[in-house]
């Protein structure tokens, strides 16, 4: 499961390299937004229902959905899994400070640790932010010790996520983009 995420990560890197940093922003209209909103709630939502609510044909919806995928606006669809059902009880984030010249080295080191599902270089308080999903706190501590053991890591701050994590994909403000059309 986590492997897939890493694949996506690599995929994104390739995409960024190909476009040479210049990105042409996709433009969305109200039909695109209606499709995204419906699929955010339930990725298996029937195209017939979406078509009805937009007063267009089912063909239009499936064509638009394909276009959203082809233009890269949508990566695809997925199910939201509960890590606890797979024995992962502990989610935590690490804020890491390291020597400027060695940030890339530390990042590469982090990406080799299987429990780290996300890591990126950041600007601001920390040099690197990483998120780990592990079985329990003892395992989390092991991961922390491993990171701390890297000679270029100067400081590491751990935050364990305790509440039911609230996720709101529908918070994406799409209307502002539609306004540009």
């Amino acid at each position, binding site marked *: 499961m*986590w492997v*897939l*995420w890493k694949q*996506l*990560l690599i995929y*994104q890197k390739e995409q960024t390299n190909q476009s040479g940093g210049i*990105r042409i*922003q996709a433009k*969305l209209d109200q039909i695109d937004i209606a499709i995204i909103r419906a*699929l*955010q*709630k*339930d*990725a*298996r939502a029937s195209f017939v229902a979406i078509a009805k609510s937009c007063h267009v044909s089912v063909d239009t919806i499936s064509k638009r959905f394909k276009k959203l995928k082809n233009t*890269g*606006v*949508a*990566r*695809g*669809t*997925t*199910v*939201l*899994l*509960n*890590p606890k*059902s797979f024995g992962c009880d502990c*989610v*935590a*984030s690490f*804020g890491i400070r390291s020597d400027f010249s060695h940030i890339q080295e530390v990042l590469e080191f982090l990406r080799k640790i299987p429990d780290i*599902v*996300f890591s*990126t270089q*950041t*600007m*601001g*308080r*920390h040099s690197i*932010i990483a*998120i780990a999903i592990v079985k329990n706190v003892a395992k989390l501590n092991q991961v922390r010790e491993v990171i701390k053991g890297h000679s270029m890591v100067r400081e590491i*701050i*751990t*935050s*364990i*996520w*305790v*509440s*039911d*994590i*609230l*996720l*709101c*994909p529908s*918070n*994406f*403000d*799409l209307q*502002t983009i539609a306004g540009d059309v």
Partner: protein
Amino acid sequence: MDKIDLCIIEALTNDARTPFRQIAASLNVSPDTIIDRYNALQEKGIVRGSTIVLNPKEIGYNAMAVFMIDISPTEDGKTQFDSFAILETIIKMKNIIVASKTVGDHDLMAIGVVRDFQHLVVVRDDIAAIPGVKDMEVSFWSEITELSPKYFVI
């Protein structure tokens, strides 16, 4: 969970719109079995739902930011601030994609998508304006803006 459940999860993780008939055919069971199993997975909370995975960069969000928030322990020395209420307010804000209470250096943590630096300041100020928010640390990045919510849902 058995082999059938895992096959369903694997297929739907890659594409949540995979027809149940197709999954059923690959496992040599009836489509009804797959539907029942999928419903059971949802009822048990193993599958929290399904969603479309967007690429924020393609729709104008060029950076992500993490907000690590400290909450003042008390209001005028008497009543305690309800960190759950603050969390609720934050999660309802536009452009925040995930938020949680945390144990450690900070009380709350939120991750959001932002269009540019100006927008980051706006989001930061919006969070700072919530009563009870004492202090905040912001880190932001533009390298990866992968929105794969399944890894954040607990």
